[in-house]
């Protein structure tokens, strides 16, 4: 099966926003004259305490790590409460995770610092907690969307529990699951910027420094990259979700001759 979009690649928004993001990441310092013109009152309108590529890398690592934890923990918990043995814990889990979501991330960070100290660890913990809810909810919703007759057929044909989970339930739940992970990751990309208040290097660092030092140029530099990172990630998830349900997009081969299409696909199998 071929991936969908060989449309016209030069119209692909993911390509252009991705290129723009990379160009700004590696070329921000070359825009120094521009920022000088825009903010003539600033002596140093270019954030230089860390390079932008290193800030982007740190930001991506923190978001990636915390999202990974959220997916493993949230997905695992969602999976457990949809099994027969864990069904009783479902409402408890949903309540706990929903309460976690109601704390503002800054508050979670503020509580985490005296307990764990400054640095990357409290930031990752806060972000992971914050990203749990969408993952848990989408795991449950995705697994429950698998039609009962399909599960019954799978059991009746002799698939084991693991085979049903890997071959039937997860592939069918994947689009919904990915939607939850997408929400979680996008929230965390924004929230990770705030994490630099507890001493972590992220794309939020120029924003925070800019806010406290009245340096609008810093704020714009950081915010541009955070925003673009979120947009690029969102577009990438959209692509992934389309890819995860290719089979849904197959249409009735009504008007085109069946035989001309089949030899090629038969060979690719």
């Amino acid at each position: 099966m071929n991936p969908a979009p060989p449309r016209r690649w030069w119209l692909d928004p993911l390509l252009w926003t991705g290129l723009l993001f990379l160009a700004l990441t590696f070329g921000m310092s070359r825009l120094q004259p521009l920022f000088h013109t825009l903010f003539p009152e600033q002596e140093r309108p270019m954030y230089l305490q860390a390079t932008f590529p290193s800030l982007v890398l740190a930001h991506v690592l923190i978001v990636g790590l915390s999202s990974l934890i959220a997916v493993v923990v949230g997905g695992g918990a969602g999976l457990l409460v949809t099994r027969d043995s864990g069904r009783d814990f479902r409402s408890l889990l949903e309540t706990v995770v929903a309460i976690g979501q109601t704390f503002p991330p800054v508050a979670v960070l503020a509580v985490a610092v005296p307990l764990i100290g400054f640095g990357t660890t409290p930031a990752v913990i806060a972000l992971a907690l914050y990203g749990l809810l969408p993952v848990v909810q989408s795991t449950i919703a995705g697994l429950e969307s698998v039609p009962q007759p399909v599960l019954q057929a799978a059991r009746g044909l002799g698939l084991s529990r693991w085979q049903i989970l890997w071959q039937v339930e997860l592939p069918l739940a994947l689009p919904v699951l990915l939607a939850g992970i997408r929400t979680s990751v996008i929230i965390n990309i924004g929230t990770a910027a705030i994490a630099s208040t507890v001493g972590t290097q992220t794309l939020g660092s120029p924003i925070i420094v800019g806010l406290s030092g009245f340096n609008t140029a810093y704020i714009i530099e950081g915010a541009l990259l955070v925003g673009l990172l979120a947009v690029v990630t969102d577009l990438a998830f959209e692509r992934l979700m389309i890819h995860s349900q290719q089979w849904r997009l197959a249409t009735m081969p009504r008007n085109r001759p069946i035989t001309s299409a089949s030899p090629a696909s038969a060979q690719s199998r």
Partner: protein
Amino acid sequence: MIEFERVCKRFGDFVAVDDLSLRLADGEFTVLIGQSGSGKSTTLKMINRLVPHDSGRILFAGKEINGFREEDLRRRMGYAIQSIGLFPHWTVARNIATVPALLKWPKARITSRVEELLQLLGLDPAGFAHRYPHQLSGGQQQRVGVARALAADPEVLLMDEPFGALDPVTRSALQAEIARIHQVSGKAIVLVTHDIDEALLLADRIVMLDQGRVVQDGTPRQILLEPASDSVTRFVGRSEVGLKLLGLDQVHSRMRAPISASAEGISRSATLREALSALIASHAEQLPVLDEHGQTVGSIHVADLLDVTR
């Protein structure tokens, strides 16, 4: 092949199956029939352990079914349910290959088996193998479901109301298909239905259940001629017993010598019920009987239709 010995199943206080003893023979087409809640579907699901039985013994191939590994037992039995049971994210070919793949057949053997089954069920392999279930009509989906159940050449085929969701035309086409498959393969088939006409058409043997008990166990003719109780008669439909009896035999069983009538003929493989209908429609006492090539081979007379009870 499959044997029930004093089997009981309860769901809470509800007794679904009550002291059931039953022996299903090799190669036999058994239809379990009854109203909703009669225990027919539970009985079927106990055979492949989708529903565990509470007491008694169920034997498959001479061995208590709880002695098998659950998956092994099910892979030796074909299982078909209503069309929505196909895996929507797999192609037709992958769906049919489910059990052969579980049994780790070599790829080439799976491919040729899939092709063979698609042909057996009247689906063109080139056109259908790579479609997804949602690209098929209801009848085509059900054909794939039957092909999937037959894929690994199971020792018995279990079918749970397989044609329930189909329109009447598609349903009768598939009924004819499954009757043909039974004849060709000689496999034991156990089918659950609430449709008495489907049961009379397909079954070698009908087991009628009511409130978890067998109320009658016999051939279609016995069910019609010697109903064990009033409830059987009611289920069959008291006013239609005669017509249903006519439906069990084919025209060639009552054929006389050819006549020279101008009336339109009837096929020798049509049922006597269809013959009566044709006689009434053409205001005739007798009609010519035709073979598959349209040649007149005999005649059918209305008087011969009256002795079906004998």
